[in-house]
């Protein structure tokens, strides 16, 4: 994929970044996205809200952020300051930087202070790569199935947490022209197919997973090898929202019945696809700008299931 032909080019990325400082309300209606700035007076009416938090990378201690614990705490504070208390919080992975017990401890401790009903997790590759996810599952995988995947219902909305960071094999994903993609695996796909089989097509579906379930940038492995198969099971549903992390920046796409969304990190921003030699942290962020590139996501769900308003809140 050529950078200059990428639909998510630098210009769009910068546009997103410009908006990020204030926060934007996204509303999907009849397949179209519309946006309005936060605080513009538009009252959001919904039956409940939930928050997404991602890529806390507790343990990271380099430029541009030597205080990831502090910025993670600020993200939780941001959630606690929401006008409407979120029904629950979803953490979309890379809780830790190096899967170390003390990193998991710190994250869990901070999340205890979140004013919400429950916290759901899916792991990022940073949480599972040293022991195939054993420690992660012990600490954050209670009540899940298989290797940590899960589904639950809340006020008529069906939520599905998928894991696409296990058994990452060199050479996977060749079918998409790139290797090193995330992968769901046949066991999980079979479970997913069964999980959604009995649901009415009017049930709103929210899928969350760490690595994006759409191909954002093959050169950096930003996609999931077998996501098309997973999405094929969700084709018949009227409203599907996919929430991901991993790329440390906000991106959105609508494709048919599916709205894709990636979240801010609470730790450090990563470059837009192809704008740097490698997807490592953007190191030269001025300290006073850092918090405009970090944040949390607030999702407003209306009772009739449509639309879902996805709001990205920068820390600053």
């Amino acid at each position, binding site marked *: 994929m050529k950078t200059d032909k990428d639909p998510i080019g630098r210009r769009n990325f910068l546009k997103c970044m410009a908006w990020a400082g204030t926060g934007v309300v996204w509303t999907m209606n009849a397949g179209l996205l519309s946006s309005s700035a936060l605080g513009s007076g538009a009252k959001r009416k919904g039956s409940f809200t939930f928050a997404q938090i991602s890529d806390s990378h507790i343990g990271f201690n*380099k*430029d541009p952020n030597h205080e990831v614990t502090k910025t993670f705490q600020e993200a939780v504070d941001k959630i606690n300051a929401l006008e409407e208390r979120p029904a629950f919080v979803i953490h979309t992975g890379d809780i830790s*930087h*190096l*899967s170390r017990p003390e990193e998991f401890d710190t994250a869990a401790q901070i999340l205890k202070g979140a004013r919400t009903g429950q916290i759901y997790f899916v792991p990022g*590759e*940073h949480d599972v*790569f*040293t022991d195939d996810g054993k420690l992660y599952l012990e600490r954050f995988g209670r009540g899940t199935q298989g290797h940590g995947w899960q589904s639950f219902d809340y006020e008529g909305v069906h939520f599905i947490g998928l894991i696409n960071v296990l058994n*990452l*094999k*060199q*050479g*996977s994903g060749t079918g998409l022209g*790139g*290797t*090193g993609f995330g992968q769901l695996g046949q066991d999980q796909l079979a479970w997913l197919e069964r999980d959604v089989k009995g649901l009415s097509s009017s049930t709103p579906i929210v899928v969350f997973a760490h690595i994006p379930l759409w191909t954002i940038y093959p*050169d*950096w*492995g930003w996609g999931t090898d077998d996501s098309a198969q997973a999405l094929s099971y969700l084709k018949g549903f009227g409203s599907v929202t996919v929430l991901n992390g991993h790329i440390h920046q906000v991106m959105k796409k609508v494709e048919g019945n599916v709205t894709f969304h990636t979240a801010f990190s609470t730790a450090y921003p990563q470059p837009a696809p192809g704008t740097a*030699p*490698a*997807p*490592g*942290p953007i*190191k030269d962020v001025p300290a006073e700008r850092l918090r405009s590139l970090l944040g949390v996501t607030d999702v407003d769900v209306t009772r009739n299931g449509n639309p879902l308003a996805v709001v990205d809140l920068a820390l600053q």
Partner: protein
Amino acid sequence: MLIKLKLSFFLVAILGVVGSFVLGHGARTGAQPATTNANEIVIQNFAFQPASLTVKVGTKVTWVNRDDDPHTATANDKKFSSKTLDTGDQFSMEFSQPGTYKYYCALHPRMTGEVIVK
């Protein structure tokens, strides 16, 4: 220790000479950067450099992480793996059997490399 301290000055002098020879020899060997670098794989910008390294049987190969992101050097068949290499960390491994050893980074599986042992 006490006995050694009571040894004659002559013996101590001889030991000193031998010792300095050994140290000097060691220092000379260690000071040959070509030898060290030839068997070193640098991890930078999410890539193993060189991506393909050919060495003789019995060579110790060292990976050094110069990225800000953590990486690993993990055999495709999982027969060897470094621990997590944070910035500046290194991992060494001696290859005692000929063959082609393909490896990747367990965190960023697009990063691949091979060591060819002849």
